[in-house]
């Protein structure tokens, strides 16, 4: 039996009809066609499904869609505004923080949440913030550089 839920996704009101077991990740990718959020491990470990829920990073694969009725979800698709890339996106591209790109949406979102709270993060702040997001390619070094560069650029 499906339930109709309304939620705000990247500033746009959305309505979907979902069965009780559908996750937020499934809603984003399949019902809403927002494939930027990735399905990695499906058990909340890898971080590729990370989205912001009312501004805080959460695991979309462990979140039931019915549980986020009325809440605001931000995905990677919500970062660029008015045709312009977010400073984090620009910094990631410029600094070489993207290789295969699979971890990138999750990384960008946890970084955004960090900068929203800590405008001038230290290296340790950044490493703590991305601790829940695995990257197989970059070794994290350029991701850390990019986040701090975006913080600089934003001031």
């Amino acid at each position, binding site marked *: 039996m499906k*339930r109709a839920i309304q939620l705000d996704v990247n500033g746009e009101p959305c309505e979907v009809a979902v069965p*009780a077991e559908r996750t937020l990740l499934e809603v984003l990718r399949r019902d809403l066609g927002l494939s930027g959020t990735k399905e990695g491990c499906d058990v909340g470990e890898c971080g590729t499904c990370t989205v912001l829920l009312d501004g805080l990073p959460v695991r979309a694969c462990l979140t039931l869609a019915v549980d986020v009725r009325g809440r605001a979800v931000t995905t990677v698709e919500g970062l660029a505004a008015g045709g312009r890339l977010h400073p984090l996106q620009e910094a990631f591209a410029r600094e070489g923080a993207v290789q295969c790109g699979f971890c990138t949406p999750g990384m960008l979102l946890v970084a955004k949440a960090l900068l929203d709270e800590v405008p001038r993060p230290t290296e340790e702040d950044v490493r703590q*913030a991305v601790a829940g997001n695995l990257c197989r390619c970059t070794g994290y070094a350029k991701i850390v550089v990019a986040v701090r560069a975006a913080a600089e650029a934003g001031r």
Partner: protein
Amino acid sequence: MTWEYVEPATVEEALAALAGEEARVLAGGVSLMVLLRNRLLTPRRLVNLKTVPGLDGIAVGPDGALRVGALATHRALERSPLVRERWALLAQAAGHVGSPPIRNMGTIGGNVCHGDPAADLPAALCALDARLRVVGPGGEREIPAAEFHRGYYETALGPAEILREIVVPPAPPGARGVYLKLRRTATDLAVVGVAAQLEVAHGRCRWARLAVGAAAAVPVRLRDAEACLVGRTPDEAAAREAAALAGRAVDPLDDARGSAWYRRRMVEVMVARAVLAAARREP
């Protein structure tokens, strides 16, 4: 696989929804959803406790004890100025759970009731002499933290009961607490987790609480190690002696995170470090 999904507005409604059905509580979901996705649990009904207001508070009660609602998130505990200041061990343990997104979602109640032997909060609550307030069809009852964990993923919580609140008494005013976690990666479950509180006055330990997690099916309170510290200077020799007693008190698990032999050695290492850190009043 699907289930009926219920959003109770009160504790009474939640209890009614849990009774007589194969129902499970949904709190933060970070433990439950993994079990559901892997089909290790197949409930017929999920009861979302987050829709009941007032279960996530963090405040000091009239008796000076900390009252933590079962739905308080790890993030809230980690960041609470009150908890960091006066129950630092609890804030540190909460801050070591998983990763930031997991801490944003997960709750202390869920962590404790899930009963993973490697969980962080059960050991901390043992060392804090916490009491768990549970409510069910038979009414309310209070269970000491040390008696709450019965076995591997098994707690004293009855099938139609919920954990409502955790009460943490104040430690002696000069006591300092630390939580140390040995893990293989930045966000892994513990190989060994040690919760320690020491009160040091005039260079001597007056009072001690030690508990270790991930070294047995349940958290282990290290009473012999505590006793050996009381009355003496908490220096390296004392820490080593406490550590040796701790090593003898545990019955470690053999699993992917470490063999029983390795875990026992690491209990000794981490207990010694925790004793010295708590004595030095370090975070």
